[in-house]
């Protein structure tokens, strides 16, 4: 067995085993078995790092691929297999998932301390990690779909962890159903690909696509359908509504789901499928614009929210939009790079917000203020995360966001009509800096607005602050990927170099990194810095020194403010139109079933009654007669056994019956042994 094969097995098996153990006996273990989960995930992380080391360092090559697959079952004409597909992207994604999962596990020890069903929480985390690793490692569409759904169900369980709360119970079902709508499209995409290519394994499908077995409009439809899965999981417009509500889950879950893993799954999938996706310029354009819409609108919503976790949730949606746009315009490396940097700084921000919530006992930023003196570590690390997401130089977000902007600018300069994409991202970047610093100012600066909670605020325990510090380091260090040794560009090279990179280059592609034209690169960089600075400055003006009153501004642009504050009423649209329609149609159909269909059945009753009068006579004399005869016989038999009626006889019969049964079965077996 190849080393990578063994490692992959272990990476998958450990969290799954932890899940099983925790579900089975977790409640009875000392410390509710949290050390088992943490041990398992830490080992998985070590193995992830080993894979990374082996693939990226020891055997580095831009198009490194290790693939192994095992037969699973035959559907008749399709052979279902499962296996591992490890290339550079897999290796880096494994590390991202491993690191974040491990940190969240450790962080949860402090955050979830003393919670009811503590062991169950760790069990769900294990299931989640397993599903996520499977999603990253798998080598075919069918397994991808399986992992995809398993990720969905574990997030359902985690979001609904506080299931006794109505809001949590609602949030988990909303998350599952919304993402499942996307999943159905994804499944449809898989059906189309299988129909045309007859293949499931990534490699075979890509080859088939490259050979034109599926092309043109059908390919575009298949890709857009597959992308539908990403729209659901990565919370892209219009299926983004579940993510803000998913904040009902415990904060470590928000960090896990909303940072590196679940929401990044969609982006990862698009990256994984890039050799195929890039074959359809139309589909790529759809992807780019969906990403843009998401990035832009989510940013405008984040500006007006007051719940600290909701601000972060909308900022996540917005950043995911950036990644998707990047992939859509062909800036493949930039998109995946942003996935990694975002994973670290957003996990950091969420865990910081958890630390704040833990201390202040509220999620409403209007109730906070001045916390920086009370919790210096949390403040410092959160500031680092904020600088990273705002795109300030020397922090990780700067490099990746800049690369995306450069990609969009390159795309726009080639296709003039699509300069909109760049402009949209540019404005959104300014808004990002603005709302993130709004969060910092409202939470950590100024006077405390709720003295009671301020008095009780305190720095969090080490199990919570240590992960913060590690993530803070990663949020800075992650940035050296592009302008440090430029290693990320070498690490994640557009896949299937021959055809795919060709196609990508043809429509604007890979200008994100060092290969881009100079003016695009430096132009984008300059504009990025400018817009980030502008956003931070405005935020300082409004929320820091308060030269401009936020309330008065909001009142002046009331309609727009309302629109943003109410999230463009997308939730209301679903509630009032889509869900209301389904609820109405089910009632209509149920009534139809009861009144019309069953009504017709019952109408036949009078007809039957006529017949029944006749058959009644028959029944009385013939059938009953026979039955009575039977009863008589039984009675006779019964009276025989009455004589034998005592406990001994009963158990005797039982034993005899068992004996007969045993003899018979043994007889059957012996027949075949002889």
């Amino acid at each position, binding site marked *: 067995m190849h080393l990578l094969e063994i490692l992959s097995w272990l990476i998958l098996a450990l969290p799954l085993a932890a899940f099983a153990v925790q579900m089975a006996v977790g409640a009875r273990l000392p410390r509710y078995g949290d050390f088992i989960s943490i041990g398992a995930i830490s080992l998985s992380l070590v193995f992830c790092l080993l894979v990374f080391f082996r693939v990226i360092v020891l055997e580095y090559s831009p198009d490194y691929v290790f693939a192994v697959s095992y037969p699973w*079952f*035959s*559907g*008749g*004409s*399709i052979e279902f297999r499962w296996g591992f597909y490890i290339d550079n992207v897999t290796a880096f994604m494994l590390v991202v998932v491993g690191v974040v999962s491990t940190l969240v596990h450790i962080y949860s020890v402090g955050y979830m301390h003393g919670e009811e069903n503590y062991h169950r929480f760790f069990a769900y985390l294990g299931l989640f990690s397993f599903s996520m690793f499977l999603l990253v490692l798998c080598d075919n569409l*069918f397994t991808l779909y*399986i*992992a995809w*759904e*398993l990720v969905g*169900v574990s997030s359902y369980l985690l979001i*609904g962890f506080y*299931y*006794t*709360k*109505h809001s*949590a119970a*609602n949030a988990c*079902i909303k998350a*599952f*159903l919304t993402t*499942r*709508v996307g*999943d*159905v499209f994804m*499944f*449809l995409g898989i*059906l189309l690909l*299988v*129909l045309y290519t007859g293949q499931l394994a990534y490699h075979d499908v890509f080859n088939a696509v490259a050979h034109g077995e599926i092309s043109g409009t059908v390919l575009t439809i298949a890709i857009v359908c597959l992308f539908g899965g990403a729209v659901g999981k990565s919370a892209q417009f219009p299926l983004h509504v579940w993510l803000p509500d998913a904040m009902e889950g415990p904060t470590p879950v928000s960090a896990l789901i909303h940072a590196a893993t679940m929401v990044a799954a969609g982006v990862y999938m698009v990256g994984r499928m890039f050799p195929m996706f890039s074959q359809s310029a139309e589909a790529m354009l759809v992807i780019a614009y969906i990403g843009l819409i998401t990035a832009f609108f989510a940013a405008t919503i984040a500006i007006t929210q007051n719940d600290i976790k909701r601000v972060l949730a909308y900022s996540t949606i917005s950043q995911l939009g950036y990644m998707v746009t990047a992939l859509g315009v062909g800036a493949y490396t930039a998109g995946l790079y942003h996935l990694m940097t975002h994973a670290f700084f957003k996990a950091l921000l969420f865990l910081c917000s958890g630390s704040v919530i833990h201390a202040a006992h509220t999620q409403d930023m209007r109730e906070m203020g001045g916390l920086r003196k009370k919790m210096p570590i949390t403040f410092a690390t959160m500031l680092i995360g904020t600088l990273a997401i705002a795109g300030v130089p020397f922090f990780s977000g700067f490099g990746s966001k800049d690369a995306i902007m450069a990609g969009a600018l390159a795309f726009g300069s080639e296709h003039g009509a699509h300069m909109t994409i760049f402009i949209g991202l540019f404005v959104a970047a300014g808004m990002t800096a603005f709302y993130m610093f709004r969060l910092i100012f409202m939470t950590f600066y100024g006077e405390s607005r709720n003295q009671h909670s301020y008095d009780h605020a305190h720095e969090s325990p080490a199990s919570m602050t240590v992960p913060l510090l590690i993530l803070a380091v990663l949020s800075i260090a992650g940035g050296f990927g592009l302008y440090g040794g430029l290693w990320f560009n070498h690490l994640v090279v557009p896949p299937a170099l021959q055809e795919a990179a060709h196609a990508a280059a043809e429509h604007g592609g890979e200008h994100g990194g060092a290969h881009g034209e100079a003016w695009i690169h430096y132009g984008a960089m300059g504009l990025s810095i400018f817009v980030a600075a502008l956003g931070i400055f405005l935020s300082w003006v409004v929320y820091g020194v308060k030269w401009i009153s936020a309330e008065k501004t909001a009142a002046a642009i009331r309609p727009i403010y309302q629109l943003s504050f109410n999230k463009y009423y997308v939730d209301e649209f679903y509630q009032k139109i889509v869900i209301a329609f*389904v609820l109405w149609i*089910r*009632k209509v*159909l*149920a009534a139809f*079933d009861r009144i019309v*269909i*069953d009504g017709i*059945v019952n109408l036949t009753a009078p007809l039957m009654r006529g017949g029944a009068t006749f058959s009644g006579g028959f029944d009385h004399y013939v059938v009953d007669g026979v039955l009575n005869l039977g009863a008589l016989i*039984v009675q006779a*038999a*019964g009276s025989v*056994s*009455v004589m034998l*009626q005592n406990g001994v006889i*009963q*158990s005797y*019969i*039982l034993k005899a*019956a*068992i004996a007969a*049964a045993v003899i*018979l*079965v043994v*007889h*059957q*077996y012996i*027949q*075949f042994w002889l």
Partner: protein
Amino acid sequence: MESQTHLLTWMTFFPLIGAVLVLITPSRAKTFIKQLAFVFTLPSLALGVQMLRLYDPAAGLQFVERVSWISYFNIEYYIGADGLSVPMLFLTVLLCPICILASWGINDRVKGYFALFLLLETGMLGVFSALDFFLFYVFWELMLLPMYFLIGIWGGPRREYAAIKFFLYTLFGSVFLLIAMIVIYLNTGGSFDLVALREQIASSPLGSAARVQWWLFLGMYVAFAIKIPAFPFHTWLPDAHVEAPTAISVILAGILLKMGTYGILRIAYPLFPEMAQQFALFIAIIALINIVYGALCAMAQTDLKKLVAYSSISHMGYVMLGMAALTPEGMNGAVLQMFNHGTITAMLFLLVGVIYDRAHHRNIDGFGGLAKNLPIYSGFTCLAFFASLGLPGLSGFISEALVFLGAFPVFMVITIIGLSGIVITAAYILWTYQRVFLGPLNEKYAELPDCSIREQVMLYPLAFIVILLGVFPHLILQIFQPTMMQLIEIVTKG
């Protein structure tokens, strides 16, 4: 290959011996009767396991026994098992002991109940093993009577209405089956041999009489569609389920419904292959209605048992869609779905029974927050619900995925619309789970006891199978795959 060990015969009739023994036991010995009944379902289960071990998928019809029965009419006692019947037989012998355990709470007319139940098991096993059309029909009817009494006597408040509705509906269908059987018998020079009939029909005047074939196929379809139950013949099912005792609901949904699709695959398809193709689109449309309409109706239910009943209608739609497609994935998916639905829905009905025994009602909105004090129960329910909504890793997913994969190339539009069933199913199932188990605990039920050992013994084997077949579907797929491929060949060549 004639069986020397009479495995199928023993398996089929052992419960009948039990029924007789139950009958001669005095009715006061209630517990003893229950034990006796339970014990007498076990040999069949053991033989079922043995059957699974011995069955050679490549060898076609096995465990054949054939003796003349009523020679004047050329009626034979002709039984055997191929890949289609083996999973169904196993499902039957598996569910019956579980159902006896689920019936432990029956304390009224115990003797009659368990005797009838064992008789029912014999009838069901007979249906799945009969290879003589007449024998098939006898078992088909034999099964009907105990079912009627079990619902009509031991059922809920509206039991008589439900039982009569069930009885008349099925009888109505049986008439068509009987007519078809007689017409075929008369036209083939007096043959009931289901194995040979296909060629006998082809070489008889019937073989070229397309119109007659059309009517015969339609007749059989109606007979079997009622059992499935296919729209618009489905309304007996919710009523029967709501009134039937738990164990009978399990049998009804777990096994009886499968007889509809089994009958189509065993009799209607091979006997009239051309009609199978002609009717394919029609069956696919009905399947789609079952899937979507059944799911939406399920969503509208307030009675937990009715909801599960409608979900059965919806899930049987997948079976029909798969078999209408006549593709390898479709057919395999259909049979797999028959088996998987048998185990999953059995779990669901058992679970409904467990809560009904405690709370004495089944109103979905009347619970709330049960997950808090019933962890084992809610765990089982969670598993069964997720299996039912087709979660990967559990058995239902594989069969649904296969059905969609198989149907998509043939009925593209129908499959696309049918996919919406996935979302609707998830919606009503999770919504139900939320209303019953999540949210604040309903104080009325703060003291409910969790699953007893007996109840766990019923549920664990099914849960195990649901997970096992979700991960290793080939364990059962490989049994019926060759048979299904053969059937496809017969039908598409015809």
